């Protein structure tokens, strides 16, 4: 009797997972169709304005001697009026030459004011909180240290705040080191799908474009009024996105504000990165899921999109457990009715990919003018399987965080630039 109910529950579970994956696939099809066939919503960087707001640029750094010169030179090369600009590289417990490099630049350029953190917990949220206290201006732009912003990037991002509803803005991330191997080329495809199609479609449809935290900006007073970034949440970007939306603020997406980043070049570094993202994203989901569904500031479809965005890292785990459930059914001789379901699951998984399904990535590549890079799309199936492993590990970490109630250790992504 018990085994009957157990098998029945497993069957039900597989059906539920199949429906959830189908919903995600439909969501991404809508995004792709929106990007390809609908008139796109424009961002505020179309505006030329002689009255620019003073801005603070924050660059969190931990052992960044390999990339520090590049981002500082790029910021010096910015066309933003230097009397309205303040650059704060946040040296977060570095043990290499980062401090020395920052001191050299600070000596030469008065608007570069490094913050040297030698006490307190290490990590991006904590570093940003200290820097927000140190910053002078309302508009705060954040670049990761491996990013190389073009000359007019600061102006473009700052322009978002002509809109009093905008609490944060996100630019487009473009991998620079695509030539380094299969992984970097696949990450390039993934980024293209995620930004060129996914983020832009969400912005066009007035849904939930995400503040990504690596090339973006926010209002300092708003973040401070929310108590700053939570050091216990590793995905401070997702946390801020939902904190803003559930308080009536908007996040804008600037598809043409493109900025180079350095992608991970080895699979183990990528594994740790995805695991950290999954952990942080799940922490944010625990924090914001119910509030997203109940807030009066979001419309119905925004709530649906928000809930699905928060749940995106649960999908690989659901799929993995559905496969396990299927194995149990197979061993108990109950496989026949479910063969089609499992086939559908795999089809959807392959469509769904990891963070952007193949049709989304293909469309993005086409919009970007790519040619033969689409030939690599089938290889993303491997990335998906790889990500299932990393995301399940991240989910486990997030659950342990809830049990232990501790502050997780921030793990920095390795740099490769010479």
């Amino acid at each position, binding site marked *: 009797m018990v085994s009957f109910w157990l098998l029945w529950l497993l069957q039900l579970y597989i059906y539920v997972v199949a429906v959830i994956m189908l919903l995600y696939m439909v969501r991404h099809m809508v995004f792709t169709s929106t990007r390809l066939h609908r008139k796109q919503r424009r961002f505020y960087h179309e505006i030329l304005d002689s009255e620019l707001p003073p801005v603070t640029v924050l660059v969190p750094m931990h052992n960044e001697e390999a990339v520090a010169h590049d981002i500082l030179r790029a910021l010096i090369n910015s*066309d933003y009026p230097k009397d309205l600009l303040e650059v704060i590289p946040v040296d977060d417990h570095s043990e290499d030459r980062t401090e020395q490099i920052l001191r050299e630049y600070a000596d030469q350029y008065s608007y570069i004011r490094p913050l040297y953190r030698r006490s307190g917990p290490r990590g991006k949220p904590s570093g940003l909180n200290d820097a927000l206290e140190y910053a002078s201006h309302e508009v705060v732009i954040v670049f990761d240290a491996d990013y190389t912003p073009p000359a*007019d990037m600061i102006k473009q991002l700052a322009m978002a705040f002509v809109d009093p509803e905008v609490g944060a803005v996100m630019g487009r991330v473009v991998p620079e080191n695509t030539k380094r191997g299969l992984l970097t080329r696949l990450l390039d495809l993934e980024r293209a799908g995620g930004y060129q199609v996914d983020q832009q479609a969400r912005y066009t449809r007035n849904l939930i474009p995400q503040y990504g935290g690596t090339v973006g900006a926010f209002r300092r007073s708003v973040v401070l009024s929310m108590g700053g970034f939570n050091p216990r949440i590793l995905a401070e970007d997702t946390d801020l996105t939902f904190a803003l939306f559930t308080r009536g603020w908007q996040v804008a997406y600037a598809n043409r504000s493109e900025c180079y980043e350095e992608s991970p070049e080895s699979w183990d570094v990528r594994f740790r990165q995805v695991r950290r993202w999954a952990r942080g994203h799940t922490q944010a989901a625990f924090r914001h899921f119910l509030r997203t569904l109940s807030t009066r500031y979001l419309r119905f479809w925004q709530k649906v999109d928000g809930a699905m965005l928060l749940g995106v890292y649960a999908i690989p785990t659901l799929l993995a457990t559905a496969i396990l459930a299927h194995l149990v059914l197979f061993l108990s001789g109950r496989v026949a009715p479910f063969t089609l379901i499992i086939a559908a699951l795999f089809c959807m998984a392959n469509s769904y990919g990891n963070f952007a399904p193949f049709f989304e990535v293909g469309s993005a590549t086409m919009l970007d003018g790519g040619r033969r890079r689409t030939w*690599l799309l089938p290889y993303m199936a491997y990335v998906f399987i790889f990500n299932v492993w990393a995301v399940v590990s991240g989910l486990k970490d997030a659950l342990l965080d809830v049990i232990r109630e501790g502050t997780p250790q921030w793990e920095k992504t390795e740099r490769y630039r010479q």
Partner: protein
Amino acid sequence: MMTWETALLLVAFFGLMLFPFLPGLIELLNPVDDEPLAIDMEYIREARYFGITFRRRIDEQMSKQAMGAGAMGSGRIQPLVTIGRGTQTSGLIAALDHIEIGENCNFGEAYCYGDVQIGADSTFESAASDGRMVIEDNCTVHRWVDSEQDMAIGTGCVLGVSASSAQSLIVGDRCEFQRLWGLPVRTSEEPISRYVPDLPQEREEIIGKDTGIEIEDTARWSSGDLTVPAGSTVGRDIVAYGDVRIGANAIVLGTVKGRGRVTLDEGVIVTGNVIGQRGINCIGNASVFGNMFSERDIELGPGTVVGRTEAFKTIYSQTRVLLARGVEVYGWIVAEEGGTVG
């Protein structure tokens, strides 16, 4: 022992399974499309992009000093060039001091270090002047026009993708455009004398005193449509999820944003920006100190002034911009689907 049919089936199965990976393997072994997406790291947005890059191109060909003494392209550069009525030419018309083109001409490009005058009913690709420029009635510009000093455009002209002037740009009735830049852009000959009363400096203190209205929620949002009564003064930004109407002679010390349509009645003053996702309509004599941005049409009635002498701004519509006679804009007007005057 495996039969040959089974072996064939296995080969076919694995062959078909691996087939999708073959093109990718070719690309990996012989990379053709592995460059990162190109980003112009030095790109800076510029309203007069066409004129500036055209001059740079000319300067690269020949310095000004060399031009005075020599030639450009195949012809000599004269101080004064006059093109007779009805002339058709495709080459570059260049002069040091003055270019005068007669009526009904058809030419390619014109560039002058001094003034340029283009006769009525002419058609051309582009023209740049370092002095003033006059374009008479019913001309058609296929690409762009740009001048370093004042530019005056007659009635019924089609202005290509961009008409820009480093000083004033006067645009006549029935002109069609995509982008206009001028300090200011005017749709009347005479400057508009704008009356701006002494504006209170402390924005927040005004709330609840003079407005006579209530904006829902402490965070300044209004969940539906919002109307500000005529003559009110609102000391903060206004954001509404629906339409916004600012009554006649009201003053808003901040930005007005509506997710619906924003209407500014006669004589309204807005010291910030105006954002109307579903369109903006200025009935007339409104003063907007900031930018205007909409995903739909923007209509500016007579006497509307946008921007100030000391600060240029942008009017951007993802569809059309309709300018009445007697509008003055300091800065840039962009109409993605075209704009008209009058």
